[in-house]
């Protein structure tokens, strides 16, 4: 059974979830994204992206779609799996007060889906103040504590001097997350969605742009895949995401996913090329240390 990857995008109202979703739709690059929103009114899809709107389903240029799930997320997700062709990646844009971890737990009740990351968008300028708000403060801190990737949006509005302080604060508030600073939701879709093309052995990952960089690990021999995945996710080597297939020490093919500090190694069929692509910020990705990891894991 294929597990359809689902990313949950949370964050309080005004943080920039919708801007981010529009950006991802615009940059989908042939990837068939399905966007589920809690309610249509919250989602202002840029008009030039909309091809058609029918029966509560918005068709978007490039094969993407968007619909609302109201009170029945599972039902809406299941309807997506029955589409032909099914989407390749699902984005769930949760309501501003939803706790994204709860959405992931519910989604994982069905074996059809795989969590591809809890993304929490915050307004870099106001998040610390909002987190102290009597009404919504604990909602925001709960969202952040569930986050695997934090998109710190509107960084351009933040004075340079405050940026380090924000990063420190986010490191505490979202201890399990990698933080991606952004302006107007401009984040590399590959970094955010793990929609990284499966790498061929030895090839340079093709998605990298000037901000992000990818590298491909393709050891000839099997390695301790659990240890390697854990190190890549938690070792502080600047990897935002890793995805691909490697053989373990007994020679069996495994599928590896890491997002933020979470990692996952599962059994895979033999019909995959060996190769693990790691993606991170160009200036933060410690390529030589990662290469050493591979040697150590052999």
């Amino acid at each position, binding site marked *: 059974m294929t597990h359809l990857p689902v990313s949950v995008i949370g964050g309080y109202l005004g943080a920039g979830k919708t801007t981010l979703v529009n950006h991802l739709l615009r940059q989908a690059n042939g990837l068939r994204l399905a966007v589920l929103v809690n309610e249509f009114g919250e989602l202002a899809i840029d008009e030039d992206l909309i091809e058609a709107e029918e029966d509560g389903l918005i068709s978007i240029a490039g094969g993407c779609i968007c619909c609302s799930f109201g009170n029945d997320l*599972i039902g809406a997700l299941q309807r997506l799996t029955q589409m032909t062709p099914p989407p390749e990646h699902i984005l769930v844009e949760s309501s501003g007060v939803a706790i994204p971890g709860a959405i992931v737990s519910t989604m994982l009740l069905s074996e059809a889906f795989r969590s591809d990351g809890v993304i929490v968008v915050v307004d870099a300028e106001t998040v610390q103040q909002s987190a102290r708000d009597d009404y919504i403060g604990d909602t925001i801190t709960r969202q952040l504590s569930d986050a695997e990737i934090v998109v710190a949006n509107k960084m351009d509005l933040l004075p340079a001097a405050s940026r380090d302080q924000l990063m420190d604060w986010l490191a505490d508030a979202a201890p399990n997350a990698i933080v991606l600073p952004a302006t107007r939701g401009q984040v590399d879709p590959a970094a955010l969605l793990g929609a990284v093309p499966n790498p061929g052995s030895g090839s340079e990952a093709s998605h990298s742009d000037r901000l992000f960089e990818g590298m491909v690990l393709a050891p000839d021999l099997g390695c301790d895949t659990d240890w390697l995945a854990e190190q890549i996710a938690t070792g502080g080597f600047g990897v935002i995401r890793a995805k691909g297939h490697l053989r373990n020490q007994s020679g069996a093919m495994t599928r590896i996913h890491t997002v933020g500090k979470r990692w996952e190694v599962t059994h895979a069929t033999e019909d995959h090329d060996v190769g693990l692509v790691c993606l991170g910020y160009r200036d933060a990705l410690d390529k030589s240390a990662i290469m050493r990891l591979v040697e150590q894991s052999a």
Partner: protein
Amino acid sequence: MSTTIYSARKIITMNPNQPVVSHVAVRDGRILGAGALKDLEGWGDYTLDERFADKVLMPGMVEGHAHTMEGTLWRNVYVGWFDRMDPDGKVWSGLKSIDDVVGRLSEEERKLEDPSTPLSGWALDPIYMDNRRVTRHDLDRVSSSRPIGILHASGHIMNVNTKALELAGLLKPGVNHPGIPLGDDGLPAGELYGPDAMTPVGPHVGFDRALTDCDERGLIDYAKLCVRAGVTTSTDLAAQLTDDSVAMMLEVTGRPDFPARIVPLRVFFGMSAEEIVTYVVKLKSQSTEQLRLGRIKAVADGSIQGFSARMRWPGYYNGAPNGLWYTSPDQMLELYKRALAAGVQVHTHTNGDQATQMALDMLEPALKAHPSPDHRFTLQHCQLADAAQFRQMAAMDMCVNLFANHHFYWGDEHYRLTVGPERAERMNACRTALASGVPMAIHSDAPVTPLGPLFTAWEAVNRITASGRTQGEGEKISVAEALYAITIGAAYTLHLDHEIGSIEIGKKADLAVLEDDPTEVDPTELKDIKVWGTVQNGRIFAAEDL
């Protein structure tokens, strides 16, 4: 244009100018007059109808917070702790043990022929059974081959058997969900907490996804319950109001023998503030005499016993973390502004005191932006409001509809566990509301508790909990105040007090026909008064003929 004059043992009018009269004249479904026969004779020819000569009449009661889905739920097996009357008038005895629950379910199970038909039950409440956890194994004793699902009284928890879990694909190890506790064997124990956990299983056990809306038969059955409770106008407080359901409700309520006026509110979920206000304004124009559309229900937080209500400091008595917002403050503010600008009324569910404060804090700027005399925005449940909050409601001309019944059914639980003694004593503070000058109604939230305004009034007067304790002596109200709350009081929160709520010239001929006098019986017996039936828009509905 015929006139009928009814005599009665006593007619309680709720009109302070003549609180008690002997006769009421009805013409064209409306009250032509109330008073002595000689005063009414001046209207011309009439027929004197003495069928109510030994009855006590009062204004048809108004249920300001209930859900017509109660009518639909009765098609499932009742397994509640308390005795409860179904739409056909049969009283189902309360079940006092899990064995009794299993026994009744087994009895009903034997009546089903097709072995794959799901068996569904409702109104289970294990808190009265020493909080014993019900598991799938308990329900497997009823059947291991037929899917079974039992909804709890709160509506927030469901118990299912092994077969149901299997059909939903949940009978597997490794389930990791806060709403699905696991048994010692690592498999789901059969309890499902909250809609997220219930939704995947519901369809397999006969509980459809759209549980909040009634269907045609459900609406008819609900109206029967109204007649049995003396209710002539009821809200349906959180409906989806799709085109189909509105069409169904218009057709059913328009039938000549449909005995109640229904006031459905469109719930603020799945639409933006802008959309819902536009939607509801459009609905309003479809209103009929018997179906009053055009109002919005917003939900600020969850429930107190589910620990999802939003609490101010110091929070839950047992230390549980604060609850959840169902609507964010920013969305609430936008809804209030747009609704006030469009002249649409909003009723807001607030359970915890922080949710109440949030609604107050959002309404204030909205009112400044759109000054709206007589808006009558109403807080529903509002169970934990303190005196300062009631004063603030009064200052903003808000109304409140307090959940008196809840105090009986869950008051002990709140005292012991959720909010602790001090706040449990002041829950549903009817006395403070009235003293602060806040127009007040009281409610059942049927199906959460049974529809029955006389019971609700009894509880507001006596404040007795299920264990028999008096909780909150200082918040008791008088019988007269309680009767006002279930008639004019509730009508006022719906902008309907000019049409219903009192027996007075020009109003709808809506009457509750009682076997006894609520103002004369011992206040502790208010709930035991038998309801003969109702008169609605001049049409007579005897409970025993339904």
